[in-house]
């Protein structure tokens, strides 16, 4: 019996290999099942605030502009656009002949409707502010419109993504939060919505009238499985074609022959970085030498190897490596305890009473770092830092707090000495709200109260200039200043670790991820396993 089994396996394996050799052309058919932990909540982009909702609604609604693989801005529904020399107006020209699913043409009237809806005070949206900067919205003709801003505002261009693309003919006169489209979108993107089984899955089908040509895959199924371990078991049994792995799963649980044969793994930096931030209102941390000493006392690679199993990159500033605003040549702080001790001594920190802790003016160097509950990666990071700082004679206590408490009671009220957090960064390099000295008020995001006039100026300039090369210079300079000042100790950029069934071809990882060319993914005819019965 066992023998027969082996022979069968052999045949199957040979068959698969054979198919791959023979059939490499793109062909229509089959489906992809994507497994995630979170379920979308609403499928109108401007109302959504979670990534699952944006993932799915992004398949139905394209934007006017989008990011290319190298993060430059290119047209999507817009054929072209012009920015006036003073940077105050942008004129968009839409591609003609783009159809909504029901056959109605997409025009500037739809964009105007989307714009009016998003700036309407009765629309509960988190994205209105970029659009509130618009002082005038003029429709020139069916395919062209012009928007005027009060001040030049470079991030404005990329705000014209899919937030304001809505079918006016279906939504006019209906409340945006209560209409059929919130759960049954009708869009113009590569996939059409078919079914949403709450708590289970969303089924999408190829849009045959998609303006860039129909996607190769017949359908896209988004399954929600709230437990990560279950999700991984489903992947192992072949019930899921795509999911994101944890570092542990990536390195230890998928290193088998079975996985190598049936799945393709990818890794690329996420648009996120994790940092240790100090409260500048605390006298100890106002001294740059103390911050630099702590930076020298932390081994970033050790943290990456320990908590991310090597699946991340050291961060040197608030941008992600391999993107255009990222400056690789800033001051770096190598792991050097000697240098750290020297800097601390210069700042007046010495162990005068021989208890192993540094002290100054009779006070030992002891502080607390706040960490959000439930994030073991960050907690482990804090523990490693704690151990390293102990070697410098600094006692760092770790306080773990429930997320809402951490933000509302401690960060917003500035009641902290240090905090270990992460930022998800947008694709536009503007970080005015995080570093500008005017943003230190309650609930504002410069919660460490960092103030540097030169950085302020660069941030203001960066918003006024549209040219990528010019902006690059500005943000390069800003990163140099931040690296010298060290308002945060930038720790690491974790990797995103997607795994996809090897059946699916034409996946080309790029700095923006893998799913940007989803419509061109295909399954070679002979590998198609879900053939639709007519």
């Amino acid at each position, binding site marked *: 019996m066992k023998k027969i089994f082996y022979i069968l396996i052999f045949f199957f394996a040979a068959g698969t290999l054979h198919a791959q050799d023979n059939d490499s052309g793109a062909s229509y058919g089959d489906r992809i*099942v994507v497994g995630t932990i979170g379920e979308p*909540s*609403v499928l109108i982009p401007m*109302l*959504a*605030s*979670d990534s699952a*909702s944006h993932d799915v609604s992004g398949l139905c609604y394209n934007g006017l502009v989008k990011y290319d693989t190298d993060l430059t801005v290119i047209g999507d529904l817009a054929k072209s656009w012009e920015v006036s020399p003073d940077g105050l107006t942008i004129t968009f020209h839409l591609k003609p002949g783009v159809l909504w699913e029901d056959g109605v043409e997409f025009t500037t009237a739809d964009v105007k409707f989307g714009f009016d809806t998003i700036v309407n*005070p*009765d629309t*509960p*949206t*988190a*994205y*209105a*502010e*970029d659009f509130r900067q618009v002082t005038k919205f003029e429709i020139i003709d069916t395919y062209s419109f012009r928007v005027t801003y009060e001040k030049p505002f470079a991030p404005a261009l990329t705000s014209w993504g899919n937030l304001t693309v809505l079918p006016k003919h279906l939504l006019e006169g209906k409340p945006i*939060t*209560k209409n059929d489209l*919130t*759960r049954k979108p009708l869009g113009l993107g590569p996939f059409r919505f078919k079914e949403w*089984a*709450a*708590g*289970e*899955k969303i089924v999408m089908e190829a849009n045959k009238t998609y303006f860039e040509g129909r996607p190769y895959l017949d359908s896209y*199924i988004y*399954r*929600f*499985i*709230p*437990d990560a*371990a*279950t999700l991984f*078991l*489903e992947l*192992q*049994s072949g*019930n899921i074609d795509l999911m994101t792995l944890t570092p542990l799963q990536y390195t230890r649980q998928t290193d088998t022959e079975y996985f190598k044969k049936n799945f393709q793994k990818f890794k690329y930096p996420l648009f996120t970085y994790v940092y240790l931030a100090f409260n500048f209102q605390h006298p100890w941390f106002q001294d740059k030498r103390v911050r630099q000493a702590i930076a020298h006392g932390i081994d970033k690679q050790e943290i990456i190897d320990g908590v991310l199993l090597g699946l991340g990159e050291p961060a040197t500033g608030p941008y992600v490596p391999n993107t255009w605003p990222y400056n690789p040549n800033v001051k770096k702080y190598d792991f050097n305890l000697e240098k750290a001790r020297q800097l601390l001594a210069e700042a007046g920190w010495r162990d005068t009473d021989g208890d192993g802790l540094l002290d100054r003016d009779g006070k030992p160097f002891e502080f607390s770092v706040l960490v959000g509950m439930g994030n073991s990666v960050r907690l482990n990071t804090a523990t490693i830092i704690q151990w390293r700082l102990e070697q410098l004679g600094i006692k760092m206590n770790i306080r773990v707090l*429930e*997320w*809402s*408490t951490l*933000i*509302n*009671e401690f960060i917003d009220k500035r009641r902290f000495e240090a905090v270990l957090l992460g*930022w998800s960064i*947008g694709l536009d390099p503007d*970080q*005015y*709200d*995080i570093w500008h000295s005017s943003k230190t008020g309650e*609930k504002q*995001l410069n919660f460490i109260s960092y103030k540097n006039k030169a950085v302020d100026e660069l941030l203001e300039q960066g918003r006024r200039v549209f040219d990528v090369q010019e902006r690059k210079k500005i943000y390069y300079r800003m990163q140099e200043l931040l690296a010298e000042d060290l308002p945060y100790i930038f720790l690491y950029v974790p990797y995103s670790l997607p795994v996809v069934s090897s059946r699916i071809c034409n996946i080309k990882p790029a700095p923006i991820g893998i799913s940007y060319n989803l419509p061109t993914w295909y399954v070679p005819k002979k590998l198609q396993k879900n053939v639709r*019965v007519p």
Partner: protein
Amino acid sequence: MIIYLIKRLFAMAPVIIGVTLISFLIIHLAPGKPTDVMTELNPKITPEARARLEKYYGLDKPILVQYGLWLKRIALLDFGNSFSTDSRPVIDKIWDKKLPVPDRRLSVTILINLLSMLLIIVIAIPVGIYSATRPYSLGDRISTVCVFIGFATPTFWLSLLLMMLFSVKLDWLPISGLKSLNYATLGPWQQVLDKAMHLVLPVFVSAFGGIAGMSRYMRSSMIEAINNDYITTARSKGLTERAVIYKHALRNALLPLVTILGLSIPGLVGGSVIFETIFGIPGMGQLSYQAIMTRDYPVVMGILTISALLTMIGNMTADVCYALVDPRIRVK
């Protein structure tokens, strides 16, 4: 009896108001707001935008006013709309009229819990009787050990082990969810079978701890019954052991179980976060967990109110059943 019932029903009103008021205050005391999902650490949010959002959800009003408004709506049987970004009516989330009845969240949870309760009764009562009639025998000791293992086994761990064995290694049962992806293309009998296969593991896992507990209750109440004088009387008048145990002892031993079953009625509705999450089952446990984590007050309140009502109805039903089965405590 009817007057007693009416009295009980009237007594429920102040209790419901008390329960909801306290719940309302407690969930509002927890740090965070429903709007946090949109506003927290979001660079694009200005203080005005935050205020606008809070006003939109009525969070700017004093808490007692908010409670008053909520109570007013509830009196008209309107649970309001969810504060999550989908703004759906709370009642639709719990009992979506557009879906077939068995697919609605509440029915999914009730179905699983009823099946598991049935499984508990079917297994636990015979085990309890067996142990009680042969106390401290080898069989009793084995079942005691099994019971404690059952008590001590963490549900999530057991679930994953069973999934790995039955779904990944043996490929007998599906891993998660309630339906296969090709469910719609199956015939009616295949659909029933498909669902049954999906239910095997979740029902077993949710019954697992209960079997342990219930068989202990059964054992102790059976031992107590057997030690009564009327059992000695029954034996002395020459009845068979069978009749003594199953007719005289068992009937009396089942009385406390009525109370326990009555008390588990709210559990039928509450659902379990742990196994619904692990098995990816769209039931009430998942819904309430998500609602609590996102501070979706209307949904949390809706679920709490329904559970509170059902708990009280459960208690009342238990009392009535008690009166029916036990002539000693009937109210005159």
